[in-house]
């Protein structure tokens, strides 16, 4: 009698403990895989951002090679930039002298609520050094 009740009570406790552990593992696994999934998604965003960053540099480089960063005409700079920028991005370019004074700038305004990446390229405008800065963001 004594032996029977011992087996019953121990057996029940064991089963509850096992179920408890299984549920705990299940929950931990779900949390783990969900975080892994979002971490993976974040990596995909990094790649998209890198692509956008590189696209911005490409546009400024081509404008430099075409000698358009030398222009003083805002419309020329603006239209050349639009022609080179991929359709899914928008850009703004600003050229400053070495003291940070504005030489020429395109018209678009970078949004405040979405991701904007920026870079710069050291250039020569004839015999004067200048900095071409760009901002790029998804359309």
């Amino acid at each position: 009698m004594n032996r029977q009740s011992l087996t019953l009570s121990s057996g029940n406790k064991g089963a509850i403990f096992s179920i408890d552990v299984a549920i705990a593992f299940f929950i931990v696994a779900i949390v783990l895989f969900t975080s892994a999934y979002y971490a993976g998604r974040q990596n995909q965003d990094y790649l998209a951002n890198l692509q956008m960053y590189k696209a911005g540099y490409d546009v400024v480089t081509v404008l430099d090679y075409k000698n358009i960063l030398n222009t003083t005409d805002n419309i020329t700079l603006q239209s050349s930039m639009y022609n080179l920028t991929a359709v899914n991005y928008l850009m703004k370019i600003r050229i400053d002298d070495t003291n940070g004074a504005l030489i020429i700038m395109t018209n678009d305004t970078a949004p405040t609520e979405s991701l904007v990446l920026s870079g710069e390229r050291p250039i020569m405008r004839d015999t004067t050094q200048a900095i071409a800065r760009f901002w790029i963001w998804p359309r």
Partner: protein
Amino acid sequence: MAKMRKKAILFTLGMVFLALSLLSLSFLIYRNSLSSREIDYNAIASIRMQNLFSAADYHFTSLFYNNTGFKVTKNETGITFRHNLDDNFNAFFINANKYNNIVNKVYGVTSTMLFNSTEMFFNITKSLKATSSQIAYNVYSGTGNKTIVIYDEPSVSSYTIRVNSTDSNGTAGWGTVSPGNTNFVIIVEGQSGWRSTSQQQISTSSFSFAGVSGFANSFNITINGGNVTIRTDTGNLILEATLNFSAASNEVLLPVKIDYNMSSSNVFRSYYPRIL
């Protein structure tokens, strides 16, 4: 009882094994996330560096061509250097220094330019073997005599030295000739349409000497030990030296060494920008 104890131990071991598996999985995911971020930062730094190098190459080359009057051209059969012997490199160095300063400012790098303002050494290298210089075109542009030395392995099959002068006459001729297999042509041209040509098959390893008579000032060419030395004490000449060899895969490097040191990103680069 012993059987139950054994079961309990196995159960505990199973749980421990499962827990360890989960723990190692979470550790792997964490490490993967960290390394992805590291790759991302490296990729951003790499894009910035790539842009810096492309900008520097482009602007140093543009400044060189815009400030010196030098023309370096290449085709399948050779490379031609054309320049006025009166040209100096001062304007180029002033503007290249300005550009170097803006690079330092924008990129926060320690960038230094090393050059010799009176001796410009244009190395011609194989693009796939950038370290081994085969041919060099060296311009000494200090005061007094102008000297051009073409250093050459025996890869140049023929030379054409063309001199364009404001003198009204002149005759190209050879004083000493060591016969060999290298075709050497000297062409002298003047403003009134006169032209004098002299051609010899010479050995570049032995001594040969050529000159131009009739010029107001001296102009001569010495070939010896594989090198061609052109000397003149008159500046107002346009010299065009064509070196014929298989030039398809060759590059001409600017004689200005650029050292970049970006210690924060562990980026160091020491190189000569390409002008061709």
